[in-house]
């Protein structure tokens, strides 16, 4: 894994001014928001994009023959072009707007999966998948009589690829893998995984919910078949995300949801489908969300994804060092060079809820629980962990506050 040396550093003082929520207090302390893996805060540029749409050109897209509708359609489609550019897709026709990562994956499992996966076929996933990249495949396998196999995770939090050839033997139709673990922060060697899956004729779906916001991805360089991500984890509002899929797959896939917009012609005896990607966008979409996602991407492009990644890496190294120096703290996952801005840990025998509750009283927001990765937590023999995760507005001082909060939790619980 190469380390990325940022050409420019983030000016966090300037960035923080764009995030009004960072001025608020929690229990009399200034908010320290360290739950960015779950969802990020929103800059004024994104809030303004939503506001502008509703205040000045709110109309449905692709339908009305009037000025407002044309402006809305233009902005909505411009956002699609922005997403395509950000992912380096060949065409904006390869971008389907969805509610987010979960819906994107369910779109693939319901549309591509139901058509292409049959009895005895194999879907390979990993032990570190978020439930959103596991449960849809369990549902599909159950319906079709297909089998799921899992690439194991070793105790350093990395994928164990020693048996990959065996796992990829037989009628393997799909490899569904996370690019960057939401629980451990592990950045997986997806280039190798995609190459080896393609070598046996399997398609590859990347859960990029963490990698698109934190690493930036190039779908053409990766050569993945499907890629799913959410807007709200990268400064955009909730309820908007996208599926990238190679055009030939989208063309061959049946619709996911039926309704308006996705049709070409409807007769009572049957219907024909609109061209891609509209075939997959039934009903009125989250127009303001898509436009705001475009604004969020432009914000990130302005910072530069190399700089975003470098900033994450700096905070992660500092957090690993600060937490490691506290007796009783156990950190899960690989070294800083192989992970994104995520640190999951346990504190002595204090339950993660209690750690998070003490941190909350210090104004520090972290996640406590299994982070939608129950099988992974079972693997490490813990019910829950505390997770701190970083983004562009976090600063080193907040890492010190986190460490002080963890020490305070130990005092409160006499651990």
């Amino acid at each position: 894994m190469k380390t990325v040396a940022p050409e420019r550093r983030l000016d966090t003082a300037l960035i923080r001014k764009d995030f009004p929520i960072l001025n608020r207090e929690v229990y009399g302390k200034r908010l320290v928001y360290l739950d960015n893996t779950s969802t990020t805060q929103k800059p004024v540029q994104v809030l303004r994009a939503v506001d502008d749409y509703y205040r000045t050109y709110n109309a449905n897209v692709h339908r009305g023959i009037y000025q407002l509708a044309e402006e809305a359609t233009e902005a909505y489609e411009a956002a699609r072009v922005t997403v395509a550019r950000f992912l380096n897709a060949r065409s904006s026709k390869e971008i389907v707007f969805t509610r987010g990562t979960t819906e994107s994956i369910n779109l693939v499992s319901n549309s591509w999966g139901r058509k292409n996966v049959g009895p005895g076929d194999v879907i390979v996933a990993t032990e570190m998948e978020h439930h959103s990249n596991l449960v849809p495949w369990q549902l599909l396998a159950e319906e079709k009589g297909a089998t799921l196999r899992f690439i194991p995770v070793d105790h350093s939090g990395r994928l164990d690829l020693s048996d990959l050839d065996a796992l990829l033997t037989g009628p393997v139709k799909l490899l569904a893998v996370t690019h960057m673990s939401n629980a451990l922060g592990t950045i997986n060697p997806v280039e190798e995984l995609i190459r080896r899956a393609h070598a046996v004729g399997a398609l590859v779906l990347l859960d990029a919910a963490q990698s698109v916001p934190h690493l930036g991805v190039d779908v053409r360089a990766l050569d993945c078949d499907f890629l799913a991500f959410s807007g709200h984890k990268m400064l955009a509002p909730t309820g908007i995300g996208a599926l990238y899929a190679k055009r030939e797959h989208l063309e061959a896939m049946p619709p996911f949801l039926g309704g308006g917009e996705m049709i070409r012609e409807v007769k009572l005896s049957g219907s024909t489908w609109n061209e891609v990607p509209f075939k997959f966008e039934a009903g009125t979409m989250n127009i303001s969300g898509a436009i705001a996602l475009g604004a969020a991407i432009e914000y990130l492009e302005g910072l530069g994804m190399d700089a975003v990644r470098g900033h994450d890496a700096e905070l992660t190294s500092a957090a690993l060092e600060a937490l490691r120096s506290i007796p009783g703290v156990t950190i899960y996952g690989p070294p800083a060079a192989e992970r994104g801005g995520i640190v999951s840990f346990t504190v002595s025998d204090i339950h993660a809820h209690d750690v998070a509750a003490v941190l909350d009283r210090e104004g520090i927001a972290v996640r406590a629980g299994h982070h939608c990765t129950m099988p992974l937590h079972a693997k490490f023999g813990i019910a829950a962990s505390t997770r701190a995760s970083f983004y562009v507005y976090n600063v080193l001082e907040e890492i010190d506050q986190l460490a002080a909060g963890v020490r305070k939790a130990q005092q409160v619980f006499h651990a």
Partner: protein
Amino acid sequence: MSLDDFYRQNILDHYQNPRNFGTLEAPDISAEDSNPLCGDKIRMDLKVKDGAIEDVRFTGIGCSISRAAASMLTEEIKGKTLEEVKAIGREEVLEMLGIELGPVRLKCALLALKTLKVGVYGLQSWHSEDEG
């Protein structure tokens, strides 16, 4: 509310020295339930004699709130009739804990009660009418 209030001494005491912790050898009622959001699990074993709780034990994994609530609840129900146990609601549990809780931690506080109700009603899953 200060942190000291939040983790009132008696909550910490019940958490660190849970009462009636363990299992019963031949329980008349044994119930398990979990909180899927956080992975907390509680098992309650009851010995019932003449329609009353003769003995009770609990085990499981959970945070201070869920474990303290379970511990307090076991003390509360010993000697009570099943009808009296059925009448215990979330207000009683919150009163025992003596703190205000938001919707997320409320689920921690009520897991033990939920498990107990599964046991005494013999239900697979029980939801109080006024649960968060």
